[in-house]
């Protein structure tokens, strides 16, 4: 935890140091107070809700609230006027589940500190249902800006972690302090079927058993507490247990469990837990629900579909197809046919992901979207894919606005552009679902964020800067490994070292090379008395990287890292 604090402090110092220039970058809320908190959006195509459109309408915002919307509305004199001719105005989008605003804590391999892996302390095992995401929010986390740029004004934010990471809150994507961001606290108990590396519960069967055990114990403790409150005298004092107490509102059905359940089997495992234990359930980040929609519907669970979609390979360019046609005359080899067949199956599978929202919508299911696993840069393209694959724009809009508002109990204040609602807006130059459209303004909680042209993408092929100090972590079956990577020198002449907090060793790097945003290097470690060459290949995105680490026959593992800011 202290490490995390340090990061915050460094960031704060940096802000002080750089002064305002850091904060007035594109799309950022101006540190200087706005001239007025009244805005008038004029002459816009206002989509109040799916299917409810006002052409050339006016929308007035006052003190963070929508105070008027319609045609022929008087514009208050004190309003800042936004000429929105030909622009589209939507209600700000609501993200059903994400880590927005919650910086990822540095992974430490705590499992090594555990003496008995079968009986680890709860925090190390990933059992922390008493934690509150409010204590982890960072308004300056870049995810807030990234989501806001896309038109998302609100997130259901949950902590990072494993089986029971803590309680979620509804947050607005604006506000200078964590508290200012929070719209509604303790709205869910976040759960996942993820085990802890090397310690109990490690596998899905361990997690399921532990979940049942905790839940039953909480029911029992809760009942005893109730008895105790009625007639304490003579009864053994119930011992306070924050883990079990966190389940009490769940047992009372005042707090829903939000479960991350991506694949078709995880979803059904979670539904099993629900039917056995009886809690209210929000299924989130669902990716493969198409074959079990009936089962989901019958369970009464609320549903958020993931905006992380598998990518379909681009169709071959024209020259390739013509060449392929030339070849048609030749007899195709069996392996070509096999490849074709496999590609067709794979594409058909991917199509199922793309068509899922349309399918579920046609079955009368209500759902929102969640972005727990989605990369922000893919989200708009993915939404377009869903629309291209049969989801009507109205249905897509509903899944971004009215449906999540309804599912999360926010309809009174969010989800549509109506009088009295919180001023969360997205303003685009074309229909949002048009690939060419651009987000021009986003209002969150009445605060305006203006977006000029998108920053130019990096010049293709330019080698990224890798020199400096990085921290990394990688999760292997042995547990989490962390340490530092230091890279010195310049292009074509790099040198460096990698350290491991697990082994305490520091090794030299070899073959360091940078190709565009790809960084690769190798190093040698000794495993079981054998020297094993470890190859690392990562993609660098400014101050973070992601990729794989391959340890010979021992396998490959994901690795990610973060640049350590220079002092």
């Amino acid at each position, binding site marked *: 935890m202290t490490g995390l604090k340090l990061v915050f402090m460094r960031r704060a110092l940096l802000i002080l140091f750089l002064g305002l220039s850091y904060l007035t970058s594109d799309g950022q809320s101006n540190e200087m107070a706005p001239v007025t908190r009244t805005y008038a959006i004029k002459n816009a195509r206002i989509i109040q809700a799916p299917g409810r459109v006002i052409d050339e309408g006016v929308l007035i915002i006052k003190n963070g609230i929508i105070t008027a919307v319609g045609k022929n509305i008087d514009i208050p004199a004190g309003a800042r006027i936004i000429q929105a001719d030909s622009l589209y105005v939507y209600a700000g989008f609501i993200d059903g589940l994400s880590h927005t605003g919650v910086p990822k804590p540095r992974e430490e391999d705590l499992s090594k500190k555990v*003496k*008995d*892996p*079968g*009986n680890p302390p709860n925090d190390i095992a990933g059992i922390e249902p008493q934690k509150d995401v409010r204590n982890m929010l960072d308004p300056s986390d870049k995810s807030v800006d990234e989501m806001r740029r896309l038109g998302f004004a609100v997130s259901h934010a949950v902590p990072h972690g494993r089986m029971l990471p803590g309680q979620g809150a509804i947050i607005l994507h604006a506000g200078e302090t964590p508290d200012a961001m929070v719209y509604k606290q303790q709205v869910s108990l976040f759960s996942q079927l993820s085990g802890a590396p*090397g*310690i*109990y*519960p*490690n*596998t*899905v*069967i*361990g997690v*399921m*058993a*532990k979940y*049942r*055990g905790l839940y*039953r*114990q909480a029911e*029992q403790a809760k009942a*005893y507490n109730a008895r105790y409150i009625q007639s304490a005298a*003579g*009864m*053994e004092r119930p011992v306070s247990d924050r883990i079990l107490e966190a389940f009490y509102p769940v047992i009372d059905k005042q707090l829903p469990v939000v479960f991350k359940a991506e694949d*078709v*089997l995880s979803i*059904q*495992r979670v539904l*099993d837990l629900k039917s056995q234990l009886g809690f209210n359930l929000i299924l989130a980040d669902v990716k*493969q629900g198409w*074959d*079990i929609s*009936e*089962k989901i519907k019958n369970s009464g669970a609320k549903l958020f579909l993931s905006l992380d979609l*598998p990518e379909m390979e681009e169709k071959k360019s024209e020259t390739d197809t013509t060449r392929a046609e030339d070849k048609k005359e030749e007899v195709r080899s069996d392996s070509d*046919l096999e*490849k074709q*067949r*496999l*590609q*067709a*199956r*794979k594409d*058909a*599978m*991917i199509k199922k*992901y793309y068509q899922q929202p349309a399918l579920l919508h046609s079955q009368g299911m209500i759902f929102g979207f969640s972005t727990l696993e989605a990369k922000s840069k893919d989200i708009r393209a993915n939404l377009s894919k869903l629309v291209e694959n049969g989801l009507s724009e109205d249905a897509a809009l509903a899944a971004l606005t009215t449906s999540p508002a309804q599912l999360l109990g926010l309809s009174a204040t969010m989800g549509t552009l109506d009088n009295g609602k919180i001023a969360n807006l997205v303003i685009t130059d074309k229909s949002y679902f048009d690939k060419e459209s651009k987000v021009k303004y986003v209002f969150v909680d009445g605060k305006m964020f203006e977006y000029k042209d998108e920053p130019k993408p990096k010049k293709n092929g330019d080698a990224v800067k890798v020199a400096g100090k990085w921290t990394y972590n990688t999760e*292997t*079956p*042995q547990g989490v490994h962390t340490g530092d990577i230091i890279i010195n020198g310049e292009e074509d002449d790099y040198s460096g070292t990698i350290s491991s907090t697990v082994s305490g060793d520091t090794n030299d790097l070899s073959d360091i090379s940078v190709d565009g945003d790809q960084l690769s290097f190798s190093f040698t470690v000794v495993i079981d008395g054998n020297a094993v060459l470890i190859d690392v290949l990562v993609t660098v995105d400014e101050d973070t990287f992601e990729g794989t680490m391959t340890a010979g026959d021992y396998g490959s593992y994901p690795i990610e890292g973060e640049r350590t800011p220079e002092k």
Partner: protein
Amino acid sequence: MKKYTTIVLLLLFSLVAQAQQKGTVLIKNGTVLTITNGTLEATDVLIKDGIISKIGKGLNAPKGARTIDATGMYVMPGIIDAHSHIALDAVNEATSPVTAEVWTGDAINPMDVSIYRALAGGVTISHALHGSANAIGGESETIKHRYGTVDPDVLRMKEAPRTIKFALGENPTRVHGGGSGIVPRTRMGVEAVFRSSFSEAREYMKKWDDYNVNKNKKGFKGTAPQYDLRLETLADILRGEIIVHCHSYRADEIYMLMQVFKDFGIKKLVFQHVNEGFKVAPELAEFGAMASVFSDWWAYKFEVYYSTAYNATILHKNGVVTSINSDSGELIRHLYHEAAKTQKYGGLSDNDALSMITINPAKQLGIESRVGSIEEGKDGDIAIFKNHPLSIYTIPMMTIVDGVVEFDRENDADDMRIYADPKETIDVTLHETGHAGDRCMQDAEFLFHE
């Protein structure tokens, strides 16, 4: 090739059946190996709504029912594998020497293509066992190979009694003693784990009994013992509600567990692998413990160095109910051949050899009233072979579960995956070097620090 593609496409959309199906089918004129009632030449078997309704000659198919001509073919009960880890997303919760609270039923993966490959070897039921990393592992699930669904519930054989996995010897001692530095590190420690676990469970049961007696008395101020899923399961073993399937190799440890069970009054016991079972066969028979063995695996670790492929024969001739199991996604595809090895190693009769993969494993799983032989009233689980199933030249032609044809060599496509991997790279060839191996220690490899 075109025809082929169409089949694949058709399968794509028809495979994902949701509900558990029951079929009606008439198998005509086969040589019926009933197992419990001899061999019936040129006999028909009628399965109606998933149940064998009639065995005899000249039977007529009900309207609309499929008729299968089995002339010249051998018709036997669906093969049952009492030890398998196919169709599981997790096998070992290897972090603690006792994990009675976990259940492989939570990890059923109905989309594992191994299920189909097992069907292609005539296997209709397998015992999806927890692994052998822990002295007391998890509860396990008996599954029917109803392939073509994404719903794990469809696979569960609801009539099957509860089972749990135990383990002796090298695996638990290496994982916990060797890997984590906690008891057990020796076979002495393994025994101690059982004794302390069952003693604790006894105390737990007693506390609950006391609580239940007193809780409704007026002015009761006491508290219930804290609910403990692990002890609940152990208590159910003591109550005789769960069949224990124990991974074991050496004669001494096999004998030890029987003594422990005698002391705690536990009777339902099946030893798995039990490579040195032959050394204590009279004792196993006397206890009433059963044995589920490999046909010929040995020497892959020290505790199986003093094994013999005659194990099954010796056990059988000493009166122990014995089955041949696979513990492997490879072996499960030819258990009929593994069973035939009891003829090479000990000269068992055809019926005795086939019992080892049908009625005997059914007894070990407590499902012999439903499956394991061709009898009227039993489930319509059937495997049809070209040539005698114990011959090396046999070919499984068709496998039927609950009257539904799940495998048909003449009409099946190559690619039998239910879901394709959206991230698979078409050009990369997957090659797993070495043997398919047993998966008993899957999810536990990381705990070997040696």
